[in-house]
């Protein structure tokens, strides 16, 4: 019969607080040996109560003078460490952990990790290569930057411009990400999106890393290969990308040092150019989007949220965390990938998974639902996909081609 009993908790291990609501994270922790409590807005209360999920209500707005209140509440509760689940709770975790772990530096570190411009400066100071970047406060700044970047590249008038990228300072992943090629396109940016971070375009291979850190050391390092940014990703990466693993590991070690990260989890993005040079893009101190954690579980069999807890919990021992993680790449049971579906037509009436996708040996499942509206909103920035399609198979290049192929198919007709 269905199990309704929570797992046994180990009182000698840490007690963690999850900042933000993620059912996937809660479900994973619920069957793990650490005590946990969910800190989330009030709308989660009823669900937690009904399902006996330990819960403390809190509204994560901007940090304010009440932040101390939640830190003290958690301290009284006996919580050892707080784990941020979303970009918006990273600074909260920093503030709370500086109290719980009696380490004021953690708040500053979190602020650094929350601001893309500050982050780049710090990386640069740490000897990490970054592209050209600048902050923009209005459209004029953007046009100037675009021109200057292209002058630097010795472009003549009339040559096609190299694009620049605009990103919000403090939003996760590709939210609010725009690519600008011509001054005309600048007009399309709403004023309320400013200020933004501008970056030169790096013509290279973009990839992401997920690294679990314990006592300042990398305990597990995954390289996620993007087939197309914002559309598809798979783990582990192809041998073609994995061959950079030693270089990537070095980069992450530099990063850990530059940001003074002692424990937890980092999720940076890099470009590797054709000559093998690594460029730092950005780094997040929280789980990645696009269900990479789920992909890791499918590929390796370990639960990445539970790994998160181990990496944050000050009571985790070296032996424990070493035993938890499999060996990178060699221990993977296969390659797990997913594809984010965007409708390709302007008007859609139904969900129709292409037979070629559904029949593919690698296809596993999808979480697409039937369209609610017939007209598809035109995408300006990188928007949100309509759901993910999951694949699993034993050949990385076939996986890459398969994910690429999905871009040409209609899932909504």
């Amino acid at each position: 019969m269905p199990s309704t009993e929570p797992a046994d908790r180990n009182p000698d291990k840490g007690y963690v607080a999850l900042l933000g609501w993620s059912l996937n994270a809660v479900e994973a922790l619920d069957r793990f040996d650490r005590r946990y409590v969910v800190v989330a807005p009030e709308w989660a209360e009823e669900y937690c109560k009904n399902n006996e999920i330990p819960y403390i209500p809190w509204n994560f707005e901007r940090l304010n003078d009440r932040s101390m209140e939640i830190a003290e509440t958690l301290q009284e509760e006996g919580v050892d460490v707080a784990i941020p689940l979303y970009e918006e709770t990273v600074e909260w975790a920093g503030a709370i952990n500086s109290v719980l772990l009696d380490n004021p530096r953690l708040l500053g570190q979190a602020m650094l990790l929350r601001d893309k411009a500050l982050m780049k400066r710090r990386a640069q100071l740490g000897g990490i290569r970054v592209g050209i970047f600048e902050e923009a406060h209005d459209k004029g700044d953007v046009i100037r930057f675009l021109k200057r970047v292209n002058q630097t590249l010795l472009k003549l008038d009339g040559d096609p411009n190299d694009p620049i990228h605009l990103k919000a300072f403090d939003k996760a992943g590709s939210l609010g990400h725009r690519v600008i090629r011509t001054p005309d396109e600048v007009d399309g940016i709403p004023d309320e999106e400013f200020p933004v971070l501008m970056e030169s375009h790096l013509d290279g291979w973009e990839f992401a890393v997920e690294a679990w850190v314990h006592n300042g050391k990398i305990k597990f390092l995954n390289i996620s290969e993007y087939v197309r940014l914002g559309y598809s990703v798979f783990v582990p990466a192809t041998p073609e990308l994995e061959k950079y693993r030693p270089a990537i590991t070095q980069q992450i070690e530099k990063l850990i040092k530059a940001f003074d990260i002692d424990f937890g989890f980092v999720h940076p993005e890099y470009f590797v150019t054709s000559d093998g040079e690594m460029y730092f893009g950005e780094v997040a101190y929280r789980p990645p989007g696009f269900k990479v954690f789920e992909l890791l579980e499918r590929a390796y069999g370990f639960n990445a949220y539970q790994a998160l807890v181990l990496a944050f919990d000050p009571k985790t021992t070296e032996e424990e965390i070493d035993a938890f993680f499999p060996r990178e790449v060699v221990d993977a049971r296969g390659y797990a990938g997913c594809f984010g579906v965007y409708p390709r037509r302007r008007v859609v009436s139904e969900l129709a998974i292409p037979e070629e996708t559904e029949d593919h040996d690698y296809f596993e499942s999808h979480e697409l639902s039937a369209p609610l509206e017939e007209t598809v909103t035109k995408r300006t920035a990188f928007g949100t996909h309509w759901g993910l399609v999951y694949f699993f198979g034993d050949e990385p290049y076939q996986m890459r081609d398969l994910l690429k192929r999905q871009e040409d198919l209609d899932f909504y007709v």
Partner: protein
Amino acid sequence: MTAIDSDPGDDATLTKRLAALDDATRAMAESRDFGKQLKLRRVLDSLRRTLQQPGGCAAVQSRAEALEEAGLFMGTDWASPEILVPALGAAGLRSGDADTVLLEATSELRMLAIATGEYAHPAISAEDAHQFVTQVLATNLTMLFTPPSEAERTKQGRLAQLIRDLFRHLGERIGYESVLDRLVDELWRILRQRPIQVEPVQKMITQIAIYRSDPDVDLGSAVQGLDRLITSLFGTTEASREDPGIDVFRSRLEAMDASALQFEATGFARAMHDTGLVSPYHAELLRFLLEGSDYLLAEALGLSNTGRDCMLRYHDLVHRLIEEAIHPQTAQAVYGLALMLDRGILYQPPVAPSLWRQLALPLSPYARERLTLAYGPTPGPEARLLAGVLSMLGLPLGVGQGDNPTCQSARALSMWAYNDPDYLLQMVVWAARDDEIIMHFEGQAISSRESVSGVATTLPTDLDPVSLLVVPHLDRIYAEMGRRCVGRPGDPHRWVNPEFHGWWTGRGFHIDVDVETGNLIDVDDFMRHFYANYHPAYNGDQPLTHPQPAGIAATDSAARYIGWHAITILRVGLDPQDVMRVYFYNPNNDSGQDWGDGVVVSTAGQGERFGEGSLPFEQFASRLYIYHVDPVERGDVDQVSAEEIEQVIGYIHRSWGADRVPVGELQASPEPADRSPV
């Protein structure tokens, strides 16, 4: 039962899918109740992918306990198998929602696991589970041997096939004895429509025969009609009594005298004409008799006087046809040959020379490949195609569209086989030899090679040999004709139907649906002209001269609209009870469908010829939305009574027309649910 279940362990694909299913199930099992929904998607998708594989049903059955314990059914009615109702199970399996279908299918397999004792369930006993599965099976027998109907295809797509595999598995495991009498009735009902393709029926009969020969199975008291079905395939006559194999049978024939051979010949002929099924031994007998007298050959074919004359007149041709086309593997073509001779169509001047051409026809490599892929290498593709030609010419109304959305093309083939056989033979030549058919639309040539896409998106494989080769061409041409009408006002069938089907399609065109809005339009006028042209009481007792294409609004058994469907009106006449009926051809594989609101298509017993479906005139009219007439033949439109029209409109408003009544008209008319006049 050895031939039916491939060992799951042999199948690499199934193994992989099971690994994914087991992984997903484990993830769900590990999760506490609130987390299970997160794991459900993967379990359901893996279930679907497993069940779509051969051996998938057995594998899921053996995992039923693990799946239930993981919490697959949690929070649904399926969690309490003791309260489930067999009749509702059928509804679940026919649902358009894929997840409902999968949960229902898995629940059925769980019941089976409980019934067979491999899963001891705390809430329901093995006996009750057995009873449950039996009832589900009994109420869904059609699923065992007919391809999905238009309704299922539209609603369920490829899941429809999955359900069929499920039922076959349930039947094999639970045993057919409990549902045997209904099963046999159902087999007879299908056979009375004389389909060209009888493989599913043959398989089912074989299955039952194997069952019956198993000493452990008690099929209970004799079931009426069962013996006839089995003996039509196996042990039809003295020489084939114990299914001895072709070689032994042949040597027995060689030792027989004329009267013994006569006995064999009539025995086979009777069985064939009785059931529409042909035993492989029958084919062998025919080949043997080629060396003997024409008299015995005619006996073995069970020919009428017409057929016998025809055979004697075209002696050489018939011999060649048998030599080339009739083999134990193509035995069904014997029935086609017999009926073709009986139809007397060889007397039409172009038909015999066309068949000679067919005998010598070189097939294109592509045609050979398609035929070999569909039917195997023995006999060769030429023989398969020729056998298919004989079947289609003998059984024009036995053409089925299989599990493909190509009712138009199936209808055209049937119509030509019925009405214009030499034209059909010409089409076959073009398709099989040239891989190209060129038809003309308003003077412009349309090549099937240049028209890129048809209605169907994939090549069919589940068709008779002629359809297999010709339908893809016709489908593309039909779609191209439609494309050439883009921009014209109204419905394209007005122009496409006559050009596509033949000169005899009336150029007068009536439709009672407004193409722009989908609403009903001019229903009264539409019906008056239909009655005046087609109903003998209003058209001066004029029988229909040529088959006419028509369009119907297909409805399901709850009278809900499913889609537009192509049929052929064949004739209109009084049935034995003096009810005026329309007899028509439906390219769907089983014409006996319940269209809801009391409109149930009859296929036998109301004056139908083999392959015809029929409905009382007003019921047929109520599902009609397109028909053709000869515009110069004008029946007496005014003589049609208002009552008659109102009766038809009542049927329309209670079914597919329910939400197509224009707003103004609805306000002016009383509630369509009662039968009061509008």
